């Protein structure tokens, strides 16, 4: 207790100091995703020392941990009880922390079926920009007392408050999984995945890798659920697309490499290029982006797409416009070494229809938690 208090007191001191000097603090966990979001050179507030699992009762399906806890430690503790973070947050290296994963709000292959990080956050303890120690939500699945502030934290990239501790819902590891693979065009893959998603089938994840210019690519899809359901679905689904089952160890590596962006289609980003992330509605068919690299990756039944193209502003502008025209949005996810780091990484609220008024709401919301701008790094605009 004293140990935790001393960390929290140190955080508070740093926050109050920053509030006084009006110089923002950049919150850092394991620094495994420091390339994500708009960069800044502000002083760091490091959370790693505030580490540890505070409470984990498997039958409650909830784990509570400090922000600095290694994500790996949490996943190991869950695995011992045959449970998982079902949305499969990426680590992007050994040192990823729980708090960093929440702040980034990213999710892996399972997201399309089970939901996003915020869907699993049940409660949070924070220090706001005034150094106030506040707790929102709780450790139970159903809770509508007060506004759901803790769910604002995933994806906020440290621009709202300092996360101290969070309670997250966990799920049992699926009783059975199977991975299948086939050669199929992008258009057909999108069609069949969405059709399957609307049927009582245990489809849990998908990834299509191929050429943006057309032709067949490689579709890998994962089934997860009761053993009987997976077993029954394999012949049914594979016969439709002429798929074959992938060895389970190979499959596990594949989904892991996809989540961690270790696949060849992600690796070796040219110095003047950018890896763009497109978030799109289910209805969006194949997109043609002029000047993009040939190889593209589609995840989440086509709702998350990865495209490598020139890092200049004109290219991002046209990609944003394209995503926008399909009711989606685009992000400069990773940038090559020669791309100007000062480029805005995200689509702005003001660039989207019916979101303009939310820009003012968001600003007021931030300043209500952080009137002095302690967390105003603009890492997330």
């Amino acid at each position, binding site marked *: 207790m004293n140990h935790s208090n001393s960390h929290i007191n140190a955080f508070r001191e740093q926050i109050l100091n920053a509030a006084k000097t009006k110089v923002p603090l950049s919150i850092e966990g394991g620094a495994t995703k420091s390339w994500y979001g708009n960069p800044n050179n502000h002083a760091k507030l490091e959370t790693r020392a505030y580490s540890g699992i505070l409470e984990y009762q*498997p*039958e*409650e399906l909830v784990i509570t941990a400090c922000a600095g806890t290694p994500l790996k430690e949490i996943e190991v503790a869950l695995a011992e*009880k045959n*449970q998982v973070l079902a949305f499969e947050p990426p680590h992007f290296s050994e040192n990823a922390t729980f708090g960093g994963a929440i702040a980034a*709000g990213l999710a892996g292959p399972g997201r*399309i079926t089970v*939901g996003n990080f*915020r869907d699993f956050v049940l409660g949070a303890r924070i220090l*706001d920009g005034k150094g*106030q*120690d*506040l707790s929102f939500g*709780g*450790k*139970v*699945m*159903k*809770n*509508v*007392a*007060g*506004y*759901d*502030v803790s*769910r*604002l934290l995933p*994806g906020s990239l440290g621009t709202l408050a300092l996360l101290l501790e969070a309670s997250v819902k966990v799920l*049992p590891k699926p*009783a059975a999984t199977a991975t299948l693979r086939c050669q199929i065009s992008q258009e057909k893959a999108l069609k069949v995945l*969405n059709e399957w998603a*609307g049927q*009582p089938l*245990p489809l849990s994840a998908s990834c299509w890798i191929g050429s943006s210019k057309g032709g067949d690519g490689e579709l890998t899809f994962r089934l997860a*659920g009761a053993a*009987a*359901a997976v077993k*029954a679905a394999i012949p049914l689904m594979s016969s439709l697309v002429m798929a074959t089952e992938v060895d389970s160890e190979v499959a596990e590596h594949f989904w892991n490499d996809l989540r961690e962006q270790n696949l060849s289609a992600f690796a070796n980003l040219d110095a003047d290029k950018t890896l763009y992330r497109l*978030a799109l*509605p*289910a*209805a969006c068919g194949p997109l043609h982006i002029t000047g993009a690299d040939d190889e593209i990756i589609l995840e989440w039944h086509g*709702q998350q797409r990865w495209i490598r193209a020139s890092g200049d502003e004109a290219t991002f502008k046209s990609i944003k416009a394209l995503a926008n025209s399909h*009711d*989606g*949005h685009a992000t400069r996810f990773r940038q090559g070494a020669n791309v100007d780091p000062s480029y805005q990484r995200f689509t702005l*609220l003001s*660039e*989207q*229809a*019916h*979101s303009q008024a*939310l820009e003012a*709401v*968001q600003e*007021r*919301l931030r300043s*209500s*938690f952080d009137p002095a701008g302690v967390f105003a790094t603009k890492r*997330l605009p």
Partner: protein
Amino acid sequence: MIPMNMVTPPPELAAISALQSKLVAALHPILPEHALLWEPEDTIPYECDGLAAYRRMPLAVALPETEEQVAQILKICYAMQIPVVPRGSGTGLSGGAMPLSQGLVLSLAKLKKIISIDSFTRTAVVQPGVRNLAISEAVAHLGLYYAPDPSSQIACSIGGNVNENSGGVHCLKYGLTLHNVLRVRGILMNGEIVEFGGLAPDAPGLDLLAIMMGSEGMLAVVTEVTVKLVAKPKLARVIMASFDDIEKGGNAVAAIIAAGIIPAGLEMMDKATTRAVEEFVHAGYDLEAEAILLCESDGTPEEVAEEIERMTKVLEQAGATGIQISKDEAERLKFWSGRKNAFPAAGRLAADYYCMDGTIPRRHIASLLKRIQGMEKKYGLGCLNVFHAGDGNMHPLILFNGADQDEWHRAEEFGTEILEACVELGGTITGEHGVGIEKINSMCVQFGEGERESFWGVKSAFDPEKLLNPDKAIPTLSRCAEYGRMRISGGQLPHPELERF
């Protein structure tokens, strides 16, 4: 259910009447004749929602038929600085739609079109007044349904569901409203149209859609909701298990989850409830059992067979004294009929009942039930316990006679003590019914001053003038100070400003 026993006296009749005339004159040009009510005989149905004990007459009631009218109404009220209380179907159980005597009730009931259904993307776009069940009915032919199923789903509206973040029997497996809504279109108090979330898996900026969920009509007026549809399971079967001890029943719930099973539904009833409902529905419940668990599996026939077998084993190991598995759909519905009829059955046992809605960690189910048994003696009132055991959400039904003022007072105190016990056990004062006006004092118990101040900050970010449903959900500092003094002195009535007779 609960008789009218509290009416707020209007501060000053003449001033109210003048304000009413001004408001009606301003709204008249933009609304058809039948869409604006202000005569008491027309507005009286709106004086309360599903929590009938709390009533107040509004200045007027507007029933717009288009989003454009909603925006205009808000702009007018904003300009006149008149508070607005949005209202869906009026089925809320916490008084979230209780009018303000100097405010307008804005009913969204006439915005009830299903705008589009897309089976390929598994989405439906609906207006806020569309009933929850109407969505599932409209997409049933596509093999899809809308998963959240609050008990009031025949009547409650999707706009209300968004504002309460409604759950239901199946939310353990399929999630709350939060998990099943992609986009909400709404209007801020100043009349600006905004969209929260989107059809893509995420949206730019902070996740404002998340904070809209369960915001009790205080942040924006919902005018359109895009919901996620899911594939209808091919089959569902339910296990009914009896336990001779409430603690064993509670432990069985934990054991099922610990075994890695997420049942489609996991509900529990205590002995008093079982007896009350059996008399009402004749479902063949075990009347000797101290607790009955209903544990449902859904999916493909193979999946259900496998899961039922696993669940049965766990329940047997947990010491179930009897196990019945539904043979067909008719029997499944029969097993559920008692749970679904707990409220009307309570209505047969006593003149009135007061439904609570706390959530606790599952492992404390048995200890809370034991505490409630003690409270029954303390307050001299009976209590039926039904709950969504899978997620620890309890609905104790306190039985009382509303004609007896002292009994209602004791029922309220009883309820407050249950909620305080929920907070003490690491839970919350409301799982799915919302804070509204009913539990506003209990918010002082669950949250400290800093958190409550932050809630006001959130409110002000959306509605700086605090005109949208301003008296609900978040207590003011002075209210909590007053409540604290009252709890210390003990035995005083909550809501001292409300007259009782």
